[in-house]
């Protein structure tokens, strides 16, 4: 069992995490330091307004607009800001492009840095010890956990976000998507494909 060391202030709060955060919120609210309505607003933002659909729009545009793609690769912060995607944990963006030669993956081994304005709040596995510990050493075994196998001659490049720079992986555009519009392309771009633990999905096949 984990236990709290009594010389740490947090040990004065209830050990149960739900009660712990509730107690802290209650104290802070009572002192006029947090407003529960503002907390609801923050939660609504990351639950409903900001998420991987933003990043998928960026990738779809990069796939279909050569000028935007060049701008994105040259200065991603400016390019995504122009689309309205800027803010906390996305102040310094860099886009990296998957090719037949190089497959990119992103991690933060020291905590859980992640491009919030483009992908939202990271999934639990991204924040897990297993992902943080393993992906820099054995990215291909981690990919296997996701059911992904790369070609033998594809190099893996793992970006460990140790600073405030946040990385967005542009997955390879699947074959057979030439006629698709931006929304149809974005639907092929999953959150995991923009972290590098998945590939873009193939387009749905027309019924024969």
């Amino acid at each position: 069992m984990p236990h709290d060391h009594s010389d740490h202030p947090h040990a004065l709060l209830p050990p149960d995490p739900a009660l712990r955060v509730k107690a802290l919120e209650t104290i802070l609210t009572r002192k006029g330091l947090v407003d529960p309505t503002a907390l609801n607003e923050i939660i609504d933002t990351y639950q409903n307004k900001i998420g991987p659909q933003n990043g998928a729009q960026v990738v779809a545009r990069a796939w279909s607009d050569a000028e935007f793609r060049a701008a994105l690769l040259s200065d991603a912060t400016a390019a995504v800001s122009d689309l309205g995607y800027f803010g906390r944990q996305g102040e310094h963006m860099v886009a990296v492009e998957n090719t037949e030669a190089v497959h990119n993956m992103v991690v933060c081994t020291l905590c859980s840095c992640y491009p919030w304005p483009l992908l939202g709040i990271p999934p639990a596995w991204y924040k897990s010890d297993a992902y943080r510990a393993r992906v820099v050493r054995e990215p291909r075994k981690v990919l296997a956990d996701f059911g992904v196998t790369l070609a033998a001659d594809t190099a893996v490049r793992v970006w460990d976000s140790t600073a405030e720079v946040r990385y967005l992986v542009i997955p390879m555009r699947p074959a057979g998507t030439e006629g698709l519009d931006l929304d149809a392309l974005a639907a092929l771009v999953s959150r995991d494909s923009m972290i590098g633990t998945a590939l873009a999905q193939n387009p749905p096949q027309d019924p024969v």
Partner: protein
Amino acid sequence: MTRVHDMGGRFGDGPVIPESLDAPVFAADWQARALAVTLACGALGQWNIDISRHARERLSPQDYTGFSYYQIWISALADLLVERGVLTEADLAGQGQEQGQDQADDPAHPLAGRMLKPEAVAAVLAQGGPASRDSDQRPKFSLGQAVRCRRPADNCLVDGGHSRLPAYAAGARGYIFRLHGSHVLPDSNAHDLGEAPEPLYAVRFAARELWAHPEHRDDQVILDLWQSYLVAL
């Protein structure tokens, strides 16, 4: 710094368990509250991002490894609130539940004027907090240049202090891959020693430089590293 958080390359953690792409953003309501309370307290302006990261790393190793992700956040936040004088231990021990006393009896908190208001949330989140700064330190390294990471990966300013040089890269040889401009130095900023901005680079390491048994000879790891973390080769 306990280094318990610095787990890159560690063995023994088992499989990564993917979750469904349509899983809820927060697995439990308290996790959402933990994130929101943490962000709202950040708006009080009593610490910076490096201080808050360091507060999480300074949990005891037993707590850090025993706690789930948002438990780490909320526990570090409680510690930080007391350390920075926003709350007292008596506040935490009383848990805001004193009998026969309501909010109206409390004197106004000196920081109450800084409380994040609901109507300000969107603007604060959209504004963010860029870490780029002008620096009087010129870039010492150029693209493609070979460099070596300082070893050991310790904070040079504060014994046991915060650093963003992962232990697995300490002493390793890499190549300058990208210059990000100048950024706030966490090793200084986490300890109230000033922002001390300096050039920040993306440095490319061959996996075979880092690991005795890399999975593939062409694999690479790229780290963002400050100039003072690096020496010329």
